[in-house]
């Protein structure tokens, strides 16, 4: 089935985070009749926006070029004032959702709200998915680091107090509970203290 290219929605994604940009692009493409262009480079923004001629721009909230973009949109369109999608007077809740997700979107011509809303919802959803992904990755990293430091602390206790592995672990656990701290924190302070006391390794 051939599609009229004019009917497709032109979406520009501006993001310095390549992984998030591609997650966003994929999501938008599976969502329907959309042409997505991605840019990360902010130089010469006006010329590039003019060449791409997007109807919707999605940009990360924390992107430092958001002020620049807003002003460009205000001066570059004669007569038609751009509308910020998430600042429609009735859309306070959606704007809150967008800000929580870290996404900001700008509608650059008189596009119907019904066409833009699914795009915006997809963007919020995808930004959240990316944030979750990154959080999980960080959690996994810190768990691995925790395990390593606990192993080292156990080894130190086993050598200096001549106890077995299980007793060393229980000792760490009891101390953590008594001091109301995480096991990994107690292990880390033991490893740090041992390094300070060890003359061969200042």
């Amino acid at each position, binding site marked *: 089935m051939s599609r009229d290219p004019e009917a497709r929605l032109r979406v520009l994604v501006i993001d310095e985070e390549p992984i998030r940009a591609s997650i966003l692009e994929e999501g938008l493409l599976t969502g329907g009749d959309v042409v997505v262009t991605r840019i990360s480079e902010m130089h010469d923004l006006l010329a590039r926006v003019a060449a791409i001629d997007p109807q919707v721009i999605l940009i990360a909230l924390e992107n*430092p070029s*958001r002020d*620049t973009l*807003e002003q460009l949109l205000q001066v570059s369109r004669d007569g038609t004032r751009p509308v910020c999608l998430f*600042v*429609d007077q009735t859309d306070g809740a959606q*704007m809150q959702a967008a800000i929580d997700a870290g996404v900001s979107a700008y509608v650059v011509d008189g596009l119907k709200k019904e066409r833009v809303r699914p795009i915006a919802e997809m963007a919020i959803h995808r930004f959240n998915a990316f944030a979750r992904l990154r959080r999980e990755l960080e959690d996994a990293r810190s768990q691995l680091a925790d395990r390593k430091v606990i192993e080292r602390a156990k080894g130190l206790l086993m050598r200096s107090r001549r106890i077995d592995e299980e007793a060393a672990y229980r000792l760490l656990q009891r101390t953590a509970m008594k001091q109301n701290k995480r096991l990994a924190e107690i292990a880390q302070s033991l490893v740090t203290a041992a390094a300070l006391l060890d003359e061969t390794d200042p």
Partner: protein
Amino acid sequence: MTVHRPPPEQAHLRIGFIPLLDSAVLIVARECGFAEREGLSLDLVREISWANIRDRAIVGHLDAAHMLAGLPIASTLGIQHLRVPMVAPMALGIGGNAITVSTPLYEAMAAAGLRAAGGPHASGAALARVVRQWAAAGRPPPILAMVYPVSSHNYELRYWLAASGVDPDRDVQLVVIPPPLMVDALETGRIDGFCVGEPWNSLAESAGAGHVVATKAELWPLSPDKVLGMRTDWAERNPNTVAALVRALYAAAGWADDPANHEALAELLARPEHVDAPAACFRRALAGRFGTGPEGGTHTIADFIGFHRYAATFPWQCHALWLYAQMVRWGQIAHSAAAAALARATFRPDLYRAALAGGDAAIPLADSRIIGGTTEPMAVAATTGTLVLPPDRPFDGTVFDPDRLDAYLAALDAGALPA
């Protein structure tokens, strides 16, 4: 303190700021115990762009923020964005920014007759000659950056250009760049000049990327730049918190304005979690010391920045109306008596007075005054005797009478400003 103060409704506040010299009052309030003394703990959130400050204030991520003086007015009027009523119960200082041009543009201006430390008249005239030369040679117009469409920087730059015979919408290209990115844009030649708050002008000078050709204090003495801004509904729900915050910031402003504390203040601002720029730049800016051009001389601009002197924290309603008049002048909003009244009421001297009542602060009794009405020092009636302010006439000699707004706007339409 002998006056009984009701406790704040909300003791822990999230306050946004942009890394600039004039975020000093907020930083000092937290770091030097002034907030704590009023029963407040401040969580200062650094943002990179004014759009972020605006959006986070609107949805309630921030309780209050370091705002461009025009921002709460624009938000109340719904200029270029959502209409969300905001108030400014106090200003965060006077002055504090400057116009810097790149070294190549400075050289062109020098060739067009600009002498060292020529002041805003001479630099404006030199720029006008360069603009005409470039146009005649078929070169694209200079690109000048400011920080936000409703910033005092935008209005100041446009005021200076227009008074110098340069049309800000036709003879130059104006772009927006957030303050921390200005120096890089100038160094890499993407822009030819900018108007921004300190320390970014001093940093450009010390990097050899540009030269200051006009300061806000020369263009319009005693003029406002940043305010403490917040949503009106939040301020109404938390009157005691607002009052406590105003008192904390008023005391912090007094500390920050004292030259005896400037060394400590420069170190405080330089910290990575605050503005993250060399302390030397803050020392120079606090003293108002700028370069005079490529020969390497320096000169001092009187009252380049003030945090507390001359009622610097008082939210003058004539300042709100002056900003509103510039919004009308440059086509950001159509003038109406209703819009002017809303703009004026965004600045809240009543909240300021209520917060500081019973203390020893000298607070102006009037909400408004004529700007530039005299070239002599002005005596302003205050709660404790009289305040004497230096003359504040803008550099082009234009007087702004807030009660004759229509005449001012009509004169702008006719292409001339009332003297």
